């Protein structure tokens, strides 16, 4: 069997520790989808099995049943229905949790009805004794027609047993647990007659879902005498659910004993505090404050190091490589470009760290609970809080996390407003601008003025999102009944391994994704900035020399003047000058204009672009100044003022707070809404608003 790959699908309710099991099986051998641009639909990883063969593990999104009520759940059904899918599993591993066995088994019995070899994992087995739960495993295995692995993913117990079971998946029973067709025998018998070759339960699923899963054409069913109305179908689904619970209850009555006295009440105590009418919100605000303050202060040290490191690398390369086009490309295009991405790794990592801790611990669900009523007023849902908070890391996974919002209208509004929240790509822009225009001073002894400004920008982002949601809620005429059902998982100590893997994987995916765009743009900008049409560019040296001699400027300054003259007459200079009239009223010169236009691809390109432009314009390659120092020294030749002054700085901050500058986000919105209309509305609406606000700010402040 060695050399063969066994395809394993991990399936389970949310909050059963499925991801922990996945991490235990695969460790860092995981591939998260490759955004930007491509949706993370299925997380996959590989594991080594005891007989030497390889396992390909798919971590499917958490689902409560095979009746899809959200996008996430569709993914699971789609895969399990389609035997021809390349990822169709050889073996299904249904993960359940010892304390929620009854509910978790509902999904298990459904999976069994699909007649896939199935293993039952009962996770968090280490809690059994404390909770007074005892299980009769042989009895359960017999009555559920399965093999069971008792696992404690937190303590790394039982994983080897699970691997043994996976290896011998061929011997697993594919018999269903119960016969769902008895809920309406006549109906199911006629179905069987029309589609004799199809699995009856699959047919039933196809009929009851809103989505067409393609194994049979749903139209074939319509118009026949077997069509049922939606309410009739829902009643049948209810009957099915009751029947399943009857079976589960009967099985657990013998197979499980619970000593109720031992159930502990830590959850109740924590809930009393964390969802308290006053403390609940105070604690939530305090956590947010702590996150934003710490991101700003903790990551400044590694960021400064990276910044100076790249400036040094650039100078060192220039000194040690033969002068020429290639050296210019590396020194002026590639190194500053990469530096522009690498510098904000610390901040992204901190953000993902905090968010994954909040999620893992179970606290995020309490925030959902606290916020539902407030969010409802804005046409959102308590669950919209998760995308809005995750949006502080990156809008792409955040928009995808809106998939568990069942109601289309609320989900759409959430998707449309999420890019307003301050994502980590804005951080490098904010960081550099804040450090240029806001003094590094403390107010009231503890609050750093620069940190407060950053906090204000985050609040502005949330405010923008809520305002936009409120407007969309008034404007959009979509009829959808709003439902809200959110599970409140038990509190858990976050696992270092899970948090660590999330941080590493997400940061990596983000940097690789954004990095490609930034690197490509840096090279393009370098090219456009160091090449130009016509004689002005070609003969720059002579033109400058003649002019300088006439004005009596000393030859030491000629080089610098030539460089900036050349830049002005390069392709990029010409393009920048062309758009200058549009951005002048906002207080920007043409160099900033170029940076803004190129950062419509991705915001963080802004800093990289300026770095590239100033590097081309700068004369002295050995000069170890950082990009920040160059920006601070930049003078507008027309006004003689600093380019980055308070008014233009605030105007830029506001522009970046609101403008829709992220191609990847637009792509994901197109994908999630399946239409070009919504991303277009986002682009025009957000950027138009950003322009108006920036214009107003500059005109008032200048």
């Amino acid at each position, binding site marked *: 069997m060695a050399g063969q790959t066994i395809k394993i699908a991990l399936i389970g309710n949310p909050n059963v520790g499925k991801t922990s099991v996945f991490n235990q099986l695969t460790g860092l051998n995981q591939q998260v989808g490759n955004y930007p641009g491509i949706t993370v639909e299925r997380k996959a990883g590989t594991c080594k099995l005891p007989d030497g063969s390889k396992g390909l593990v798919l971590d499917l999104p958490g689902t409560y*049943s095979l009746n899809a009520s959200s996008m996430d759940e569709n993914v699971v059904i789609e895969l399990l229905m389609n035997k021809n899918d390349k990822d169709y599993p050889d073996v299904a591993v249904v993960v359940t949790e010892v304390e929620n066995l009854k*509910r978790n088994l*509902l999904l298990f019995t459904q999976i069994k009805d699909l007649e896939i070899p199935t293993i039952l994992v009962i996770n968090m087995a280490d809690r059994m004794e404390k909770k007074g739960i005892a299980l009769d495993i042989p009895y359960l295995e017999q009555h559920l027609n399965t093999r069971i692995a008792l696992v404690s993913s937190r303590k790394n117990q039982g994983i080897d047993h699970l691997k043994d079971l996976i290896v011998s998946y061929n011997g697993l029973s594919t018999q269903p647990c119960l016969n769902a067709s008895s809920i309406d025998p006549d109906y199911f018998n006629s179905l069987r007659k029309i589609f004799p070759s199809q699995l009856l339960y699959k047919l039933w699923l196809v009929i009851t879902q809103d989505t067409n899963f393609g194994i049979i054409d749903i139209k074939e069913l319509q118009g026949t005498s077997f069509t049922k109305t939606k309410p009739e179908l*829902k009643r049948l689904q209810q009957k099915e659910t009751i029947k399943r*619970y009857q079976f589960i209850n009967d099985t657990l009555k013998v197979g499980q004993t619970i000593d109720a006295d031992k159930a502990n009440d830590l959850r109740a105590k924590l809930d009393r505090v964390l*969802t308290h009418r006053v403390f609940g919100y105070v604690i939530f605000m305090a956590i947010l404050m702590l996150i934003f303050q710490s991101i700003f202060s903790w990551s400044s040290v590694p960021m400064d190091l990276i910044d100076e490191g790249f400036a040094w690398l650039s100078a060192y390369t220039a000194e040690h490589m033969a002068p020429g086009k290639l050296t210019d490309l590396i020194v002026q295009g590639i190194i500053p470009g990469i530096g522009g991405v690498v510098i904000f790794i610390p901040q992204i990592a901190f953000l993902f760290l905090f968010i994954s801790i909040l999620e893992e611990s179970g606290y995020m669900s309490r925030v959902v609970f*606290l916020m539902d009523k407030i969010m409802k007023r804005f046409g959102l849902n308590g669950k919209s809080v998760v995308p809005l908070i995750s949006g502080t890391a990156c809008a792409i996974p955040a928009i995808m996390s809106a998939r568990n919002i*069942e109601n289309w209208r609320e989900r759409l509004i959430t998707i449309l407003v999420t890019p307003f929240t301050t994502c980590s790509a804005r951080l490098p822009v904010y960081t550099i601008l804040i450090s240029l225009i806001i003094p590094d001073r403390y107010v009231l002894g503890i609050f750093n003025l620069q940190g407060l400004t950053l906090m204000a920008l985050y609040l502005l982002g949330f405010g923008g999102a809520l305002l936009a949601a409120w407007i969309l809620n008034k404007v959009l005429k979509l009829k959808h009944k709003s439902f809200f*059902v959110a599970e*409140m998982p038990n509190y858990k100590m976050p696992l270092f391994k899970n948090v660590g893997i999330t941080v590493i994987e997400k940061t990596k995916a983000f940097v690789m994704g954004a990095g490609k765009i930034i690197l490509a743009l840096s090279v393009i900008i370098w090219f456009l900035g160091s090449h130009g049409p016509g004689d002005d560019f070609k003969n720059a040296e002579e033109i400058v020399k003649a002019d300088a001699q006439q004005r009596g400027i000393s030859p030491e300054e000629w080089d610098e003047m030539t460089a900036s003259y050349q830049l002005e007459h390069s392709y990029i200079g010409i393009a920048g000058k062309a758009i200058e009239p549009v951005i002048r009223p906002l207080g920007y010169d043409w160099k900033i204009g170029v940076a803004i236009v190129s950062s419509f691809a991705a915001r963080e390109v802004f800093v990289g672009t300026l770095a590239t432009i100033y590097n081309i314009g700068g004369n002295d390659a050995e000069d170890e100044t950082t990009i920040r120092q160059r920006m601070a020294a930049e003078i507008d030749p027309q006004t003689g003022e600093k380019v980055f002054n308070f008014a233009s700085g605030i105007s830029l901050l506001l522009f970046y707070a609101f403008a829709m500058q992220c191609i990847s986000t637009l792509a994901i919105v197109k994908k999630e809404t399946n239409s070009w209309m919504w991303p277009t509305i986002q682009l025009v609406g957000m950027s138009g608003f950003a322009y108006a606000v920036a214009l107003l700010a500059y005109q008032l402040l200048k």
Partner: protein
Amino acid sequence: MKTNLSLLKKGQKAVITEFNVDAIPLKLLEMGCLPGNEVQLLQIAPLGDPIYINVNDSHVSIRKETAAEIGVIIITE
């Protein structure tokens, strides 16, 4: 005492007797919110809505408008 789930007080336990199938999402049924099962109201959100219940060992929060469609008989005060 017969009432509906949205009118329970904090800590009260009840048994579900009936509900309006068309008005409540299937997901809630799958969580175990079915006739005959016990339900306890654990918390009410600070602004009065939603509520946080334990039904069939599932801890879920739902809005009051949904809870109002679920008939219960209170078993403990």
